[in-house]
């Protein structure tokens, strides 16, 4: 009895490890945990991009309303895919969207891009040296953060936003945050 158990043991250990690794393999290593969830947005104060006369974009602009912070760049292909949806979202007035123009090599590239394709952002800050991007823990563009009324980061979406993700994930979160603030 005891001896037979000893023979099964290596197999059991192997199976446990195999299941462990099988689960691990299904996880996308590019998806890092959102370290900022539940924490106030990191302090940043970015200069405006060219052609916008506003004051740029700073962390102090965020408290007061539920809003989205979208990290983008004119060089980023996925942002091009995302852009029409952001325009649509901005036009619907569902939520204010702010932009962080990340790592433009040419300071004209970001503004030109927005001029040509349309500008969905309320505030835009220029982040050529990844100051704000690193503070947000960004690994690639686009990434979008949901910030609540207290200026606390509540959710991070990695990759382009689209109709489906908005409807199924982001909008419910925003609705919940607005209800929280109202009560």
């Amino acid at each position: 009895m005891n001896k037979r158990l000893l023979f099964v043991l290596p197999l059991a250990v192997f199976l446990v490890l195999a299941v462990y690794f099988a689960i691990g393999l299904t996880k996308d290593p590019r998806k890092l945990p959102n370290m900022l969830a539940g924490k106030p947005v990191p302090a940043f104060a970015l200069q405006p991009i060219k052609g916008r006369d506003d004051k740029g974009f700073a962390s102090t602009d965020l408290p007061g309303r539920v809003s989205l912070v979208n990290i983008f760049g004119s060089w980023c292909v996925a942002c091009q895919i995302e852009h029409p949806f952001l325009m649509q979202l901005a036009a619907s007035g569902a939520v204010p969207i702010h932009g962080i123009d990340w790592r433009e090599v040419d300071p004209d590239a970001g503004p030109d891009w927005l001029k040509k394709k349309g500008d969905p952002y309320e505030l835009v800050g220029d982040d050529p040296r990844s100051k704000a991007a690193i503070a947000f823990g960004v690994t690639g563009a686009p990434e979008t953060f949901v910030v609540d009324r207290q200026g606390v980061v509540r959710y991070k979406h990695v990759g382009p936003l689209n109709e489906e993700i908005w409807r199924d994930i982001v909008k419910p979160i925003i609705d919940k945050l607005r209800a929280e603030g109202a009560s």
Partner: protein
Amino acid sequence: MFRWLVLILALAVADGPAMAVNPSEVLADPLLEKRAREISKGLRCVVCQNQSIDDSDATLARDLRVLVRERLVAGDSDQDVVDYVVSRYGEFVLLKPPFKFATAVLWVGPAVIVLAALAAMAAFFRRQRRGATGGARPTALSDDERRRLDALMKDDRT
């Protein structure tokens, strides 16, 4: 031929991986720069995940290297700098995972397995030795067997 091999090996060892750190990033203070290099070697590039930011040519790795240096110049300790990056990207960015409860299996696991294997081996050999000498005593040879043995020995000698 052998001399060539030695030369090639020596070059391969001396050369090392190409540096990603740009001359423009290097700090004037060699002591700070050395600390920056050490910290950078332990931080994973989040774009190309199996390289450290010290090795990576990715733009985000470059910006992280610059950030590490800026923080050191501002007077942060090595631990402060690492803690800041971890607070943004999680412990995943540490190429050497810290020892704590969640990573205990990772660190202790291999040693435990080796010890278990050694114990199993020791038990196996001890049992085998006991099986050969102790246990059932070998019985004396019968007359018939002794005769056969003598015959065989005699054969051998001739």
